[in-house]
């Protein structure tokens, strides 16, 4: 099974019907993502990037085609099994952090652990450990409103790793952060890949993200426009936007 890519999409399309017209948000996208790979999905707004991201994240189903995760076809799974996959196999990191405002940092992380079937006291213990791993041991009882953007995103990363997933899906994780904090978050995600062997998939506009990536996928008009290894990207982007990747 290890030769199987962690995610494989086979000719997936997403079609929205607007009146009589069919609008393709994605058209016949086939892509493989290997284990322990750091993949950045690039593309302008409306390119189908988010739609693709939602498909590989088991958040939405394609209208045509199949998504395989570790060899399992996601369309074959029941809602309860899909919830299991989201809980145990995928950690989600969002652009606007999506922390629950009425819960403390510890509770925000612990709730994800509770969903995996742990008791509340076990969950709190594991959550404290995960928050320690992202450098927030001294912020356990703070509510999101009392944390900076960077700290909130760290809580979100702790929440994403608390169930020891094999994939982290990060949707524009640096989009709401300043340059320096954004770089810290990219490094943290990169460390998660190195230290825990987690596959990282990010959707991004941010060229800074590319420096940490192994592979970059461009999506344009609902199709995969190009897939490139990071080394190739550096030269090309460098010629367009010289200083960004230096």
């Amino acid at each position, binding site marked *: 099974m290890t030769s199987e890519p962690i995610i494989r999409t086979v000719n997936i399309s997403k079609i929205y019907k607007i009146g009589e017209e069919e609008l393709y948000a994605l058209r016949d996208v086939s892509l493989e993502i290997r284990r322990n790979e750091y993949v950045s999905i690039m593309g302008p707004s409306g390119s189908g990037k988010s739609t693709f991201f939602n498909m590989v994240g088991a958040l939405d189903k394609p209208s045509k085609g199949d998504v395989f995760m570790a060899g399992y076809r996601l369309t074959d799974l029941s809602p309860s099994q899909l919830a299991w996959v989201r809980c145990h196999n995928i950690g989600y990191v969002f652009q*606007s952090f999506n922390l629950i405002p009425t819960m403390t940092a510890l509770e925000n992380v612990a709730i994800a652990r509770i969903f995996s079937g742990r008791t509340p006291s076990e969950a709190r213990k594991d959550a404290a450990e995960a928050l320690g791993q992202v450098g927030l041991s001294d912020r356990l009882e703070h509510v999101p409103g009392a944390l900076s953007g960077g700290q909130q995103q760290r809580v979100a990363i702790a929440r994403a790793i608390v169930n020891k997933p094999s994939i982290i899906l990060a949707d524009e994780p640096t989009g709401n952060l300043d340059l320096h904090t954004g770089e810290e978050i990219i490094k943290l995600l990169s460390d998660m890949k190195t230290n825990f062997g987690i596959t990282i998939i990010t959707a991004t506009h941010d060229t800074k993200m590319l420096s940490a990536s192994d592979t970059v996928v461009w999506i344009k008009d609902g199709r995969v426009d190009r897939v490139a290894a990071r080394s190739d990207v550096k030269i090309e982007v460098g010629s367009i936007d010289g200083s960004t990747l230096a």
Partner: protein
Amino acid sequence: MDELDRIPDQTVIPWSVAFSVSWGSLRRRFFRSLITMAGVILAIAFLTYMLVTDDVTNALILVNQDQLNILLQKADVDIIAATGTDKRMMLLIGLSLFTCLVGIINSMLMSVTERIREIGTMKCLGALSTFILKIYFIESALQGVIGTLIGLLVGFVVGFGISVHSFHGYVWQYLPVVEILKSLGISAVIGALISVVAAIAPAQWASAKEPVDAMRVEQ
């Protein structure tokens, strides 16, 4: 996931955990919860007030004593017609309860709309629809139950206070204890029914949200 023959079903979270999540949410959104509860408090207080004052006046009418009848007439009680609850009054009470029901549903639906992203996020973390259903049901029902208890207390105190003010010691002398207890029971049951009925629609609506909604909604 690799070593599994079959993807297991997601763990069902017990009611006790759902209760603690709902209670935490209510506590931290205290003023918002208070506004939702205000509708229930007012409607149940009004109902209890009407029933309790009606019980007291009915008991006093039956005494049929001259001095007491003068007091009753002074308080605008129609001694002949008031043996039995006024139909128009019942309609008024019914309408106020209906308004309360619509109010609490509206308030909870707004709360669901505000928290679509929160619900979507929970589903991304592995929450089942039944868990979302549980937490919204508990939250809405708790507001209803607490509102009902406060409404009962307020309605009783005001109704009884006004009766004592109008009829002085006669109220204590001819206190219709059983009837008042029955009225409080009726108010409590109606309050509980409203709370449960009002909790169902918002909870179902919340649980039907898809995880992808967490990504879609702008802040």
